[in-house]
């Protein structure tokens, strides 16, 4: 019995995206895609630099210059107190990241099962979904005062708000994921003798996974969004806090540093979620690869 797929005509040959071709590294550097990307960045940064320092457009008068920001972030002794050499910078990063981690983890642990049940059981959905949909439209920041009233500690309201936003998104997307599963799979499972709980484990959960992970990517974005907002309003430490206090203390370059750091970590965490999803859904990756994506 042969294990090699190449000799079995039944298996479509798939093109591996990382196949090495001749002179590939050079080809990649000169590839049009990378080139255009750099052009875009240069135009954006160039415009920023020019508008503040060279043309001195009136609207941009108070904006921190690109050079100032870069110098600031790289300086061992920053004028406004935050740079990659200052310990405090990392404290803030850690504070925000930790909060996001806790909030996101809680939201996933509670949201995914909630969504699965909402999609799976009509009874559960008819009772719970109306209440869920009543609470969902309330913007997360509108919960701030209530959160402050409810929780006595300083950390809890901030984490609660990020959790809430994330929870709604995750639960909703998971529910949609279950609803998106083709009826045939349920029927096939029943034909093959699966009992209800077996259908749940073997059809509902794997079938909803693609939607769940799309939801988780949106969810982590929303988590950061809410965290920053909460930190700006009522926090100590954290990237949102830096941005807010830098503004009130007229340390403008630090605002930009805060924003850039936020963007970076936001992107990083989102990519991590996507990577985990890809690992868990090998079957889908291979399917997509074969259809030429």
């Amino acid at each position, binding site marked *: 019995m042969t294990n090699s797929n190449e000799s079995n005509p039944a298996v479509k040959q798939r093109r591996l995206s990382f196949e090495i071709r001749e002179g590939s590294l050079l080809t990649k550097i000169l590839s049009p895609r990378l080139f255009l990307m750099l052009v875009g960045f240069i*135009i954006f940064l160039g415009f920023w630099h020019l508008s503040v320092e060279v043309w001195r457009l009136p609207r*941009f008068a108070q904006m921190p210059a690109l050079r100032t920001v870069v110098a600031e972030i790289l300086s061992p002794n920053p004028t406004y107190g935050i740079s990659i050499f200052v310990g405090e910078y990392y404290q803030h990063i850690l504070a925000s990241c930790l909060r996001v981690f806790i909030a996101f983890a809680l939201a996933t642990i509670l949201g995914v099962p909630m969504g699965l049940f909402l999609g799976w059981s009509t009874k559960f959905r008819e*009772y719970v979904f109306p209440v869920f949909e009543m609470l969902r439209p*309330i913007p997360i920041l509108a919960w701030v005062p209530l959160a402050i009233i409810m929780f006595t500690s300083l950390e809890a309201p901030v984490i609660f708000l990020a959790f809430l936003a994330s929870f709604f998104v995750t639960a909703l997307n998971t529910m949609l994921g279950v609803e998106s599963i083709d009826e045939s799979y349920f029927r096939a499972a029943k034909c093959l003798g699966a009992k209800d709980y077996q259908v749940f484990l073997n059809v509902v959960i794997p079938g909803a996974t693609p939607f769940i992970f799309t939801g988780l990517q949106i969810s982590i974005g929303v988590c*950061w969004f809410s965290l920053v907002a909460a930190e700006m309003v009522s926090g100590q430490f954290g990237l*949102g806090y830096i941005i*807010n206090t*830098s503004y009130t203390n007229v340390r*403008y370059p630090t605002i*930009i540093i805060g924003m850039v750091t936020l963007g970076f970590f936001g992107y990083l965490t989102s990519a991590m979620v996507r990577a985990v999803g890809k690992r868990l859904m090998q079957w889908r990756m291979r399917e997509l690869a074969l259809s030429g994506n």
Partner: protein
Amino acid sequence: MIRSVQKFFFNRSSRRATIAIIVFLLFWETCSRSLGWFGFQVPWIGKIPAPSAVITAWIPLLTDSGYWTSWYLSGKRVFSGFLMAMILGIPFGLLLAINRTAYGIMFPTFEVLRPIPPLAWVPAAIIFWPTAEMSIAFVTFLGAFYTIVINVLGGAQSIDQRFFQAARSMGSSQWDIFKRIVLPATVPSIAVGASVGMGITWEVVVAAEMISGGGSDGGGKGGGLGFFIWDSYLGGSYQQIVVGMISIGIAGYLSSSLIRALGDHFSKWTRR
């Protein structure tokens, strides 16, 4: 009228929904009054004002013009920001979908800026724009803009290649292809993007109102429902906080439904 009420209660899912909401309200009321009724306070939920107190606080507000002005101000900000985002976002998204060069240049920068939460832009926006109103509008616009562009892109990119091939083989011009294939296919995605974008817009407006009206400044004159909530908190009238929250929830739900209805209408129209 009686008939439709009867029909409502015959429907099993409406019955269950009603029961669930009543149970929810009773649970809330009990927890909030737990200190007075049982002698010990339910943690966290116990501190929230009771639904009965909220309604008692709400009734006088219904005749207060200041309350409705808050609705108007928030609504105005939401719609202007949202409209701006649609006007700029849809063409931008379509451009990125159609033109490879434009995509190559602009999309990476767009993607790099996207993870920065719109609220993080607030201080930068305040520095940049002359009035507080414009900075709120800018931040609001940003929130919905990202969502709409991503959705339009996704919709345009998922158009089956065969439609293009069929059209070209029948001799359609570029403009024709755009008008008859790309646009109709992206309308549903625009509708979805608009719906989600509307929700995000409310988030941002409320946040911006709270931050620029509240925050460390305190006593700002921004107005709007977000400011109303913050003001109520500072003034110690906790029931009004909940009134404000529910008001925004209702406003958000109504605007999302409106957008969804419009989206459905246009989707049907393009399917002709």
